[in-house]
């Protein structure tokens, strides 16, 4: 067996004439079709030969008898991809053409055409729901910027581009099949020498754009998971972008108070690091202490202050102001009266918001 060479299946599988013509062109370069998949097509290296290829749409797998009849007529079965079966014949042999009646061939594509149309309808409904979901997420979200810097945003956007591309492919495939069926029913034979270069070039460009996007959108969450970590905040000096409790309290009696503690992390004194494309550095840091001998103002117990810091380094600095407002909305409690009186206050208070200490308690 000769060396196997793989090529990307850049054209639509439904473009029958173009694929037949491409297989023939490959055979004349000594690359003979072996396998025919959705992504890759395998060829075996050999002597250049003038070979005719025909792609037949068969809803039922052909019986041995059927394959024998095809063979008797000069057509050898090479490979299939789903319902598409590829047969080849030597250009010089006087094999009877596989299909001698275009109208009958048009009938055989009717069910495929109906199936593709139903697929398209289902996909359209799914796309509508998906777009509706996206619009509702982005239009009715009180904290849009906070949502955007979290991991899912970039992935959702990329996924939407990929899904729109898939939707467009479904429309294109339906149209190809419908046009082919209609032209066969008008009595026009399939053009077995149709130019395939332009379609393969366009397919190549679109694969070059959309495959990396699809791959990227799959990888992003894993990067996020791999980079995310939780650990206990060291008691000593850290190089973290935070104000320490000790710097605020300035009391020599301040001690760390631990709370819920699993194997690795003291959750009252923890550092959580997260990553996303829009905010590649995200810290959420809690520190909790107790000052024995001091009481809360209302005498409810021993004074035990906490501080929470949320730090975001943004890819797009212009998002900082709006993110600040979202963070205030999410984490700072104010009553309605306060909100009315202080409208606009926080935009002025945090003009540069890539460093945002917030204090609880």
């Amino acid at each position, binding site marked *: 067996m000769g060396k196997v060479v793989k090529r990307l299946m850049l054209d639509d599988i439904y473009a029958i004439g173009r694929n037949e013509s491409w297989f023939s062109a490959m055979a004349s370069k000594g690359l003979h079709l072996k396998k025919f998949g959705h992504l890759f097509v395998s060829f075996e290296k050999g002597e250049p030969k003038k070979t005719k290829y*025909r792609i*037949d749409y*068969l*809803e*039922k797998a*052909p*019986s*041995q*008898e*059927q394959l*024998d*009849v*095809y063979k*008797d*007529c000069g*057509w050898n079965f090479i490979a299939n991809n789903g319902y598409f079966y590829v047969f080849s014949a030597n250009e010089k042999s006087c094999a*009877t*053409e*596989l*299909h*001698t*009646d275009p*109208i*009958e*061939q048009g*009938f*055989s594509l*009717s069910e495929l055409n109906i199936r593709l149309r139903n697929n398209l309808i289902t996909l359209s409904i799914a796309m509508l729901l998906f777009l509706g979901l996206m619009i509702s997420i982005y239009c009715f979200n009180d904290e849009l910027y906070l949502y955007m810097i979290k991991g899912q945003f970039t992935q959702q956007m990329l996924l939407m581009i990929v899904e729109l591309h898939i939707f467009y492919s479904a429309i294109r495939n339906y149209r190809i099949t419908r046009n082919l069926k209609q032209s066969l029913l008008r009595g026009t034979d399939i053009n077995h020498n149709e130019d395939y270069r332009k379609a393969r070039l366009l397919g190549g460009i679109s694969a070059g754009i959309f495959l990396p996007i699809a791959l990227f959108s799959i990888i992003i969450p894993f990067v996020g998971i791999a980079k995310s970590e939780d650990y206990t905040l060291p008691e000593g000096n850290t190089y973290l972008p935070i104000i320490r409790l000790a710097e605020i309290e300035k009391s020599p009696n301040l001690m760390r108070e631990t709370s819920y503690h699993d194997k690795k992390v003291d959750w009252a004194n923890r550092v959580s690091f997260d990553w996303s494309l829009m905010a590649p550095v995200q810290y959420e840091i809690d520190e909790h202490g107790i000052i024995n001998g001091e009481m809360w103002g209302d005498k409810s117990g021993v004074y035990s202050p906490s501080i929470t810091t949320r730090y975001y380094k943004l890819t797009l600095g212009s998002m900082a102001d709006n993110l600040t407002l979202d963070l205030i909305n999410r984490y700072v409690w104010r009553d309605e009266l306060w909100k009315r009186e202080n409208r606009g206050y926080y935009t002025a208070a945090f003009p540069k918001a890539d460093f945002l200490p917030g204090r609880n308690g």
Partner: protein
Amino acid sequence: MSYSGSPMTEAMYYILLALVNPNHGYQLMAAIEEVSNGRIKMGPGTLYGVLTRLQKDNLIEILNDDGRRKTYATTADGRAALEAEYERLKDMIRDGRILEG
């Protein structure tokens, strides 16, 4: 696409005609060539495409399937459709006689 009594394709007409005498795929092409006096050489793709369709529409049936080869025959419905088509074609020929005058 099920058959609704519209004009038959040549392939459909000749397959139904040839299967008035039960036959299997191998010999069917030869039989069609014979019944059409050598005028029609049917491609195997067309042959099996039509056989599948006619079977779905109950115009032909499988008389015998020994696993290796299937023997097909025209059903009563198939014969009726064939006769209707034959009448239609006869009418067409008759109407066309003015060309000979």
